[in-house]
């Protein structure tokens, strides 16, 4: 059965082909159902594969992809612990989001197009996590980037959205360039790109070998682009221009965690490069706290969630940086549940508010949207780490691991955790409590979302609530089932401290964080349910610091000033001098020569058969003379 795992990506591909070729002729009911069924089929196959998996990684060779000379790249898949977990997340959460989209996108004229893109995305994402060498992984990597671009600019009639799509595309290109160079360097160093040859042979390298540091840094640049880390994070908040299910699927649950997947996949290499790991730790921590600081003042419901995603990704990178790979993947899993839930619930709110995304215009939605309110509550509690919801266990584990390895970073993460609770609760209270601040029409129109949207929400809420139990810390149970499942794949850096936090310390940490949480809960509740807590509509009324945060610390403007403008000037200079004078002149003269010789050669073709035969005989005589006489 495991050998049939190649079917997993085939289903969404088929779905994509049918929905895209069928186009507008396909009735809406069919394209949505078909696309969802295909992902469900993939999920079922993944589940069966997971159940039958016996702990031994399996490689499935499909065909020789590119072979020439010494270069041979098989198109093959790899089924192991890591790819199985990712498969389940992608197809499971992916399926729920597909179902949700049937309700959310109904009435949109690009309905079939939307589902064809979603299916294509799932296909590439599966390719990314299943590929057994870096080239297949890179194909998936590029493919999801393309789909992300297409889906951010899904409503392509709005030029702002197109800009956001282009921004995402360009930022990702920078990262991809790093990734590609990394792959080339891997090929030069190891002579192959297949995982099961590279990783066993990497053990021969000593720690902090320059070439390994270079490879891991280049790969990490790729991860920075895809997983929105400083300095390449600014595309992700703008990517919220896409439809909300897209934000949930691509920009929260799956694609943005590809960078983390890639680092875990290459953990053997990373463990050999402690220098890179410390860079990752610092960048992750900086991203986590920086984006949390921005999220506190944002007023767009999706922007808050987007910055929260960036911040959570930072957490995961910190976990990777200290060598706690399985903990990072655990947080990827729980985060997929609760962040998808939060985004979809936000989508449900936006749906009810007729497209309004500004939380300053919401409020008191608790009564009108009871289910959405309830699931949003669960999602919020999960992300801020309220026991015993999913986020509590994964986040607590990251904190515990970081505490053992690096106290300073631990401090940064604790502050970030506090900020996370503040901005999430602020969002929650402003949206569902207080008084309604929208227009009269919006109030009249308020309604709970249809079943196709609420059922996935409820399922995700359940998962967010109980998802943490698959990784119960050792305080509670005999052993950590999630970590031990993943253990065979991992190699730890030599500096990694294997001792765990003492149980008494862990207990006190948990209790302390819970108490702080409760306090923050009541403070924010007091602050944001009253009308005074609602942020001002004009940024001039904000305090100096809040204004800076509201404007995302002017990072976009900074990039514009130090990168985009100089580039424009340089390209202008190149265009005027190098291009128009030198290159064009050269090209034009070559062009003229070719056209002139074409005109001459053309005249040889006289149309007269006699001449053709004459030319032919002439050719024959020339060849015979050339060979026989000379």
């Amino acid at each position: 059965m495991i050998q049939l795992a190649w079917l997993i990506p085939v289903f969404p591909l088929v779905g994509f082909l049918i929905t895209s070729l069928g186009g507008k002729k396909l009735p809406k009911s069919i394209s949505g159902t078909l696309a969802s069924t295909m992902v469900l089929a993939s999920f079922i196959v993944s589940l069966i594969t997971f159940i039958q998996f016996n702990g031994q990684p399996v490689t499935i060779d499909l065909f020789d992809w590119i072979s020439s000379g010494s270069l041979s790249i098989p198109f093959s898949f790899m089924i192991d612990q890591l790819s199985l977990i990712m498969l389940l997340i992608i197809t499971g959460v992916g399926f729920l989001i597909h179902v949700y989209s049937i309700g959310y996108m109904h009435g949109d004229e690009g309905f079939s197009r939307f589902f064809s893109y979603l299916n294509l995305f799932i296909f590439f994402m599966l390719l990314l996590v299943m590929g057994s060498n870096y080239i297949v992984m890179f194909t998936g990597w590029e493919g999801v980037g393309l789909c992300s671009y297409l889906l951010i600019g899904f409503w392509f009639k709005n030029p702002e959205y197109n800009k956001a799509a282009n921004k995402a595309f360009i930022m990702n290109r920078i990262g991809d360039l790093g990734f590609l160079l990394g792959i080339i360097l891997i090929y030069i160093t190891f002579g192959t790109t297949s995982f099961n040859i590279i990783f066993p042979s990497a053990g021969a390298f000593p720690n902090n070998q320059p070439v390994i540091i270079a490879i891991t840094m280049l790969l990490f640049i790729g991860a920075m682009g895809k997983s929105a880390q400083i300095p390449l994070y600014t595309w992700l908040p703008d990517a919220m221009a896409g439809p909300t299910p897209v934000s949930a699927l691509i920009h929260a649950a799956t694609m943005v965690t590809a960078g983390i997947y890639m680092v875990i996949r290459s953990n053997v290499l990373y463990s050999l490069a402690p220098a890179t790991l410390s860079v990752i730790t610092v960048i992750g921590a900086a991203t986590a706290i920086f984006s949390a600081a921005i999220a506190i003042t944002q007023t767009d419901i999706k922007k808050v969630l987007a910055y929260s995603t960036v911040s959570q990704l930072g957490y995961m990178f910190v976990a990777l940086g200290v060598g706690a790979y399985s903990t990072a993947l655990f947080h990827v899993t729980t985060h997929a549940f609760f962040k998808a839930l939060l985004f979809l619930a936000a989508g449900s709110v936006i749906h009810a508010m007729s497209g309004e995304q500004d939380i300053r215009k919401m409020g008191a939605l608790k009564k009108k949207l009871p289910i959405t309110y309830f699931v949003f509550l669960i999602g919020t509690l999960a992300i801020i780490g309220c026991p015993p919801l999913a986020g509590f266990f994964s986040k607590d584990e990251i904190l515990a691991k970081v505490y053992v390895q690096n106290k300073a970073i631990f401090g940064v993460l604790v502050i970030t955790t506090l900020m996370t609770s503040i901005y999430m609760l602020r969002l929650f209270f402003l949206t569902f409590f207080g008084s309604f601040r929208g227009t009269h029409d919006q109030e009249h129109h308020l309604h709970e979302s249809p079943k196709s949207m609420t059922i996935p929400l409820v399922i995700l809420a359940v998962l967010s609530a109980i998802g943490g139990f698959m990784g119960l810390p050792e305080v509670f149970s005999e052993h950590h089932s999630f970590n031990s499942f993943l253990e065979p794949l991992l190699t730890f850096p030599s500096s990694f401290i294997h001792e765990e936090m003492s149980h008494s310390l862990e207990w006190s940490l948990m209790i302390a964080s819970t108490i702080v949480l409760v306090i923050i809960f009541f403070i924010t509740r007091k602050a944001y349910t009253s009308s005074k807590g609602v942020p001002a509509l004009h940024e001039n009324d904000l305090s100096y610091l809040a204004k800076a945060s509201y404007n995302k610390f002017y990072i976009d403007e900074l990039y514009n000033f130090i990168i985009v403008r100089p580039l424009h000037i340089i390209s202008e200079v190149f265009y005027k001098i190098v291009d128009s004078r030198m290159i064009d002149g050269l090209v034009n003269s070559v062009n003229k020569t070719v056209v002139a010789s074409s005109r001459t050669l053309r005249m040889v073709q006289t149309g007269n058969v006699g001449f053709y035969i004459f030319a032919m005989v002439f050719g024959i005589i020339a060849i015979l003379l050339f060979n026989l006489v000379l």
Partner: protein
Amino acid sequence: MNTLLVLAGIGVFGLFSEIFRFKKALLPVVFLGLAAALVTTVCDWNTNVSYFNNMMKVDNFSLAFSAVMICITMLWFIISPGFFTDETSKSDHFTLILFALTGGVLMSSFNNMVMLFLGIEILSISMYILAGSNKKSLASNEAAFKYFLMGSFATGFLLFGIALIYGATGSFDIDVIATRLSEGNLNSSVMLFAGILLTMIAMAFKVSAAPFHFWAPDVYQGAPTVITAFMSTVVKTAAVAAFFRLFIHTFTSMTEVWHTALMIISAATILVGNITAVYQTNVKRMLAYSSIAHAGYMLMAIVSMNSAAPSALLFYVIAYSVSSIASFTILLMVSNSTGNDSIESFYGLGKKNPFLAIMTLISMLSLAGIPPTAGFFAKYYIFIAAMENHMMPLVLIAVLGSLIGVYYYFRVIIAMFRDGNEKEIDFSGRYKLVMIIAGILALALGVAPGIVTGLL
């Protein structure tokens, strides 16, 4: 072998369908027959059997090329019925195409000079008639006449060459010839050398290599477009396969005689084809020159003479045939709508028929050899094979030729996005089907070339 019987069988059935008036059943039977031929071809894979006293040898090389020809013919049969609607002699044309295909299969699996000759003639005679199948058009007449005259002239050289080789080695069997040649000490070397060169010239004529290419542009332009599509795909594939089989299998020990000459022919073909195509305003004629240039690249595989060459050639032939049949299908629709084959007919295509424009884009990119299309890897493998044999000058000329090629293929692409021709082109689903199949193949092979390269 069974392939050959099935193909000849449906050809004969086509003849009878005219007499017994079951023309309606003709097309389905042809499809079934071609499918059956394809199945028998695939079943023979890896068997390596020779038939008729070693006159024919069915090995993987011949099977792969036969399969390509059969598949392209199937695509051809999807597009062609629309073209012959007003003709009374539809079944004759179909029969002739089937016989031509039979000849092509024979050319890819011959093991004896007699079979080579018969294959070439079965193919050529059918094509002479088909080139002139538009009886009222003077252009079609002229094309048929030129093709026939020069074709039979070249046949004379082929036969003279075969006779001289027979005189030198005492056999028509290419295995025996190859053994005798490698043993050496043959009595009359002049006769042998002349024989090899004359067969090379005749084969160069069949693949339309310079300086024996003069017939090709005129014939391609004058013949009905569907026939041109067949000629530039199946006929070219057959000729190249026969050329390869003959020279790589038989004359490998005599490289000093033909190698340099063929290398020069290959380079000249690439340059002449590409350069002359630049100045063409008629797209059909441009495609004819482009097909000459592609013949030059295919010859590079023959002069490479190494283990990488067969699969490189197979890949090239598939990539070229697929993109070529797509571009001729597009040309057929465009010229049906506007009434001529000029480049102006493509104006405005991007706006009014986005689907056609995308397909044109794919096929032109593939012909030009630009990733992510099949044409890129086709050229890549050919160049790699040539470089392994240290033929840098030839590779440089070929790269130069490809650069020139980009120029005229892009002219078509640019023309699509200029204003003009507001009228949308209607076309039936069958054309769409062919274009989708060809387009998907061109992209799939450009993304995953390993599917084909592992075969040979």
